[in-house]
């Protein structure tokens, strides 16, 4: 299997992000929460503090390292959850049609009508702040896109010869859905998933800012970004570094998604080979 | 000069691939006389459609015209300006395509699409043009034309849409009608009607036809002369009656022999059809020498190394084979 540049670049960025998250205790310079010295508040980048310090005097670099854990967990886990829900609902609704399709479509329309952030907010308000609640809230509210796309893809594939052939050969519905249809609709679904991960990371930022996500003093890229909003001109390093961290991670996820989609498609394999 | 309406001389069309240029069409020459029906037959990928596009000046990247001459009524048009080509299209050359649904504008009523021809090429006013459009629909035997001119393409059946296409193509009485697989997407009984209609209208208006198809029987039935293309080259050209009765090129012979024809089973029983071995080569992998050589039952060494020259036959025919009959 040949790896295109997308997969390499994307994979490397994601690997770096994961590495940073996993090895944070070893690569961070200070404790992200406890080492706060107001004497060092809002210092620009220097040898001692490579990314500068925040308003509380904490080392931004270390906070970014630990923040990777939160952002990646939120982004990846919640999106996997969303994709699982959305794809299962969309796949079955499109394939079986009938009343189930009506129910799922109705539910999807409902979800799309309510801004997902507001919905997540409501769930957070009930569950209280924290990482777990955040993942649950974000994981249950953004599945409509994958559902819609999956359903549309299934509808167009349903009448393809090989799906009919599978039915004629005696394959059961579930087997057809998961072995015949699903592999052929993965492309757009992977792309949506990676875009969704980026979106989740940003949603975390919003919720944390509103006090419902990760509460200070624990670091997450999103909350760091939110806290630094007023200081963009005075102390740009407060927002630039968390921003760059989010940017490269989301970029990496998207490129990796594109690469994966191509890797899984036998037709693009031989074309490049 | 002779009285040929269209003269195509040593036409070459190049296909620009990833880093390499391929000869999609090579050394194609034919002539169509005024009012004559000429057929160009071949399978998908043989280059017949792009030859037609070349005549109309409609080749787009990655296709481009290599060397060769295209002469319409004495005027060389292979290098004509875009403006001149636009003038010619519609007024001197009309074209109809295989898929009328995609060739017609789905957002415009069919009457308007026909009327456009009169407005663009004959300086008619819109109201005059719409009247003439209704007439045109009547000529192609669309029932209730006064109502149909307001219909959109999706409201018409496949056969009706093809009639509209014919009306558009013949609106300004062009000298030449190019028909690219015009009936392939239609049902058999409708096909027969459309072909009859085309033949009748063209005979009445003195329009020559260049009929492109993969169906040798259809073309031989409708046209006076037929040319057979294979892998970008014309391999045989004869009068229509002769091409079926006495095909000279192994490919044509193979085609004629391999397709079951009505009435044969009563005469000869259910015999195994004579196959043509192998598959149609892709443009990137044309065999050297004679391009049909991997599939030819009469192949010899010379066929693999040298491309055969054109041999002229009686009555304006030609064949390109080292071992023609």
């Amino acid at each position, binding site marked *: 299997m040949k790896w295109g540049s997308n997969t390499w670049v994307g994979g490397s960025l994601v690997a770096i992000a994961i590495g940073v998250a996993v090895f944070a205790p070893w690569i961070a310079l200070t404790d992200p929460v406890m080492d706060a010295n107001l004497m060092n508040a809002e210092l620009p980048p220097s040898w001692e503090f490579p990314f500068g310090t925040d308003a509380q005097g904490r080392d931004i670099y270390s906070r970014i390292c630990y923040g990777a854990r939160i952002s990646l967990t939120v982004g990846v886990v919640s999106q996997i959850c969303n994709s699982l829900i959305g794809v299962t609902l969309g796949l079955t609704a499109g394939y079986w049609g009938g009343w189930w399709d009506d129910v799922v479509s109705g539910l999807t329309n409902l979800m799309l009508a309510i801004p997902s952030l507001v919905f997540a907010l409501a769930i957070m308000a009930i569950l209280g702040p924290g990482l777990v609640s955040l993942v649950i809230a974000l994981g249950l509210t953004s599945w409509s896109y994958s559902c819609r796309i999956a359903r549309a893809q299934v509808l167009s594939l349903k009448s*393809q*010869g*090989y799906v*009919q*052939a*599978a039915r*004629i*050969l*005696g394959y059961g519905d579930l087997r057809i859905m998961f*072995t*015949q249809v699903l*592999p*052929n609709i993965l492309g757009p679904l992977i792309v949506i998933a990676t875009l969704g991960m980026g979106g989740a990371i940003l949603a975390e930022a919003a919720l944390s800012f509103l006090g419902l996500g990760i509460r200070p003093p624990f670091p997450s890229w999103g909350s760091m970004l939110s806290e630094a909003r007023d200081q963009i001109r005075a102390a740009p390093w407060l927002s630039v570094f968390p921003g760059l961290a989010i940017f490269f991670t989301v970029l990496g996820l998207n490129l990796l998604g594109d690469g994966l989609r191509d890797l*899984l*498609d*036998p*037709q693009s394999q031989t074309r490049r080979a | 000069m002779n009285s040929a309406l269209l003269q195509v001389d040593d036409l070459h069309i190049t296909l620009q691939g990833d880093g390499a240029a391929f000869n999609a069409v090579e050394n194609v020459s034919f002539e169509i006389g005024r009012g004559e029906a000429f057929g160009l037959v071949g*399978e*998908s990928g043989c280059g017949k459609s792009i030859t037609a596009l070349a005549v109309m000046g409609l080749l787009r990247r990655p296709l481009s015209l290599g060397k060769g001459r295209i002469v319409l009524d004495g005027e060389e048009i292979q290098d004509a300006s875009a403006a001149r080509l636009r003038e010619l299209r519609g007024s001197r050359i009309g074209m109809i395509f295989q898929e009328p649904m995609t060739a017609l504008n789905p957002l415009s009523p069919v009457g308007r699409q026909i009327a456009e021809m009169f407005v663009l090429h004959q300086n008619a006013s819109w109201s005059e043009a719409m009247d003439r459009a209704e007439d045109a629909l009547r000529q192609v035997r669309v*029932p209730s034309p006064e109502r149909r001119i307001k219909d959109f393409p999706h409201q018409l*059946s496949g*056969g*009706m849409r093809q009639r509209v296409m014919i009306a558009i193509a013949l609106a300004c009485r062009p000298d030449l009608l190019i028909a690219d697989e015009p009936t392939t997407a239609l*049902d*058999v*009984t*409708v096909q*027969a*009607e459309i*072909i009859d209609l085309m033949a009748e209208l063209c005979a009445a208006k003195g329009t020559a036809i260049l009929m492109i198809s*993969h*169906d*040798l*029987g259809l073309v*031989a*039935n*409708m046209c006076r002369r037929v040319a057979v293309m294979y892998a970008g080259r014309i391999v045989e050209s004869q009068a*229509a*009656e002769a091409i*079926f*009765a006495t095909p000279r090129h192994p490919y044509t012979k193979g*085609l004629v022999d*391999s*397709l*079951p*024809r*009505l*009435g*044969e*089973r*009563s005469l000869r029983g*259910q015999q*195994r*059809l*004579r*196959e*043509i*071995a192998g*598959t*149609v080569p892709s443009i990137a992998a044309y065999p050297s020498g004679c391009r049909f050589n991997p599939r030819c039952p009469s192949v010899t060494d010379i066929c693999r190394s040298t491309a055969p020259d054109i041999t002229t036959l009686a009555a304006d025919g030609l064949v390109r084979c080292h071992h023609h009959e």
Partner: protein
Amino acid sequence: MAWCGAITMSDQLPDTLLQLDDLAVHFQVGSALKGGVKTLKAVDGVSFDVKPGECLGLVGESGCGKSTLALAIMGLIPPTRGHIRLNGHELSARQRMETARTVQMVFQDPYASLNPRQTVRRTLADPLRLHGITNKTEVEHRVMDMMDKVGLRRDRADRYPHEFSGGQRQRIGIARALILQPKLVICDEPVSALDVSIRAQIINLLLELKDEMGLAYILISHDLGVVEHVSDRVAVMYLGRIVEQGGWQEIFEDPRHPYTRALIAAIPDPFHRADARVARAKAHGEIASALNPPPGCHFNPRCPMKADRCVSEVPNLEAVAPGHRAACHFRNSAA
């Protein structure tokens, strides 16, 4: 419904592989909100049988219902009325696996009928495993054997469909249809989407396999040349009904329904240009929509022999000779 004794008690023994008995498939289209619900009678009272080893050619143009009929026989669409009997047993959704081992289908479009993400090996081996053949050696043996039979090279078993040409893909489709060793294969326009120069290869292959494996075929095609060459018996469909039915020679040499004559007349015959008799037999106008079929005989608006009776009275499928039936009031008149 006049069957003229063609179907008797003795014909219902397993001697008959497939038996269709007044089969109808109707669809409800539209909704109460959009101009009312209409009934699309895709198949409207079709009866015929297919014996083991026999090839029935089913001829018709778009809208005649032949594809819907094929899907109904396969058990993919439930019939609205009538019976489908395979080997004497009524077709039932619950016996999906057994039906799969009896009836299979070859599709028209070789480019859309294979899963692009499955290798040939997997496409052929999976159904075997699904039907209980788990012994790896046996699966491998049957897969290779089938590839040989359809003329595919064994070393290409691990390739994907897009690496094959149209004709080769159709061979894979045929292999897939035959891997479970069915008794009846429905071939839906098996060569229409293929290049002209390779159609003969596939037709010959289908005939060879029929003899080798003792198969019965229902060949659906609009290409009368192919139908005449391959079929033992022929049925002609128009807008959901069978209009003529009989042996291949009878149908092509002595057609008794104007539509059959029109189909034959529509074929361009390079040896008989502008034959007057042919011209008279041609149909005019467009095929009506199955949603709004003309009253009486569906073919009447296009029929060169139309009379008043044709609009008011539906002609029944009645015998003109033993085994040859036509649904036309003028079935016994000269062309």
